[in-house]
């Protein structure tokens, strides 16, 4: 995990739907100058509370709509088809595939909680260099950059809050690894 400061990200539906429930959700806009939301992703968001958060941040310029071109859609369609041909485990659908394509073409960080997309990017030489962050990495980065405060005696607190707010669980091994990094970087723990 590097502390390099990316300016732009692109978010998929699975990420936005959960992240919008997080009590510290606006910390996202301290990490990124702009978070793009593809139109295909926005069309999947239905709840008034999530839409209100998105609309408010579109108005402030923290979020921006990404209008996918026919070229992007064509490449994303190839991903969907390829994932169905070669990856029988978890489906990749067009909205998150669009995020992966734009992430590669523009160098944006892809924000997702979609297991299919994460697996696809890891197993594809074309997309393996795309930076993908889950909520786990976003919260960790916000803590490392001191946008979220932590107590060295309870480094898991912010992650626990996310789990409580969203009913999402971080894989324990991944959480332990991230908390280890935070303890070492911020609290001098070994």
């Amino acid at each position, binding site marked *: 995990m590097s502390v390099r400061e990316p300016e732009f990200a692109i978010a998929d539906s699975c990420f936005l*739907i959960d992240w919008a429930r997080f009590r510290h959700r606006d910390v996202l806009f301290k990490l990124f100058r702009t978070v793009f939301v593809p139109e295909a992703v926005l069309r999947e968001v*239905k709840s008034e509370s999530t839409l209100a958060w998105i609309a408010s941040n579109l108005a402030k310029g923290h979020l921006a709509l990404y209008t996918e071109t026919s070229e992007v859609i064509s490449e994303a369609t190839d991903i969907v088809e390829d994932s169905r041909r070669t990856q029988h*485990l978890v489906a990749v659908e067009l909205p998150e595939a669009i995020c992966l394509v734009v992430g590669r073409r523009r160098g944006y960080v892809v924000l997702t*909680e979609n297991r299919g997309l994460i697996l696809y990017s890891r197993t594809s030489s074309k997309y393996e260099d795309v930076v993908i962050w889950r909520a786990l990495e976003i919260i960790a980065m916000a803590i490392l950059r001191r946008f979220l405060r932590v107590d060295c005696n309870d480094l898991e607190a912010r992650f626990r809050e996310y789990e409580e707010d969203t009913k*999402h*669980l971080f894989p324990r091994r991944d959480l332990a690894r991230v908390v280890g990094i935070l303890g070492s970087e911020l609290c001098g723990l070994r």
Partner: protein
Amino acid sequence: MGRSSAGYDELIKRYLEEEAEAKEIRRRYADWDFIRRQPLRVRAALEYYVETGDIRRACLIAGMDLEDFRELLRKANVPVVV
């Protein structure tokens, strides 16, 4: 996909190990009484999700959109493990 077969196999093996742990967590946390009370199609979708973690196909089975199905998972106490 353009990867060596050994590298691909190793990634899939690791993924399957992670997924086995996630499935165990979903099974343990799930409110099975709530799931059994659902209409057959919704119940099948929830059971499919618990077994696979594949929210896209689970939505198709349930005939629900993504956000409504995510809310249903919360009601059924089935965590998303990612």
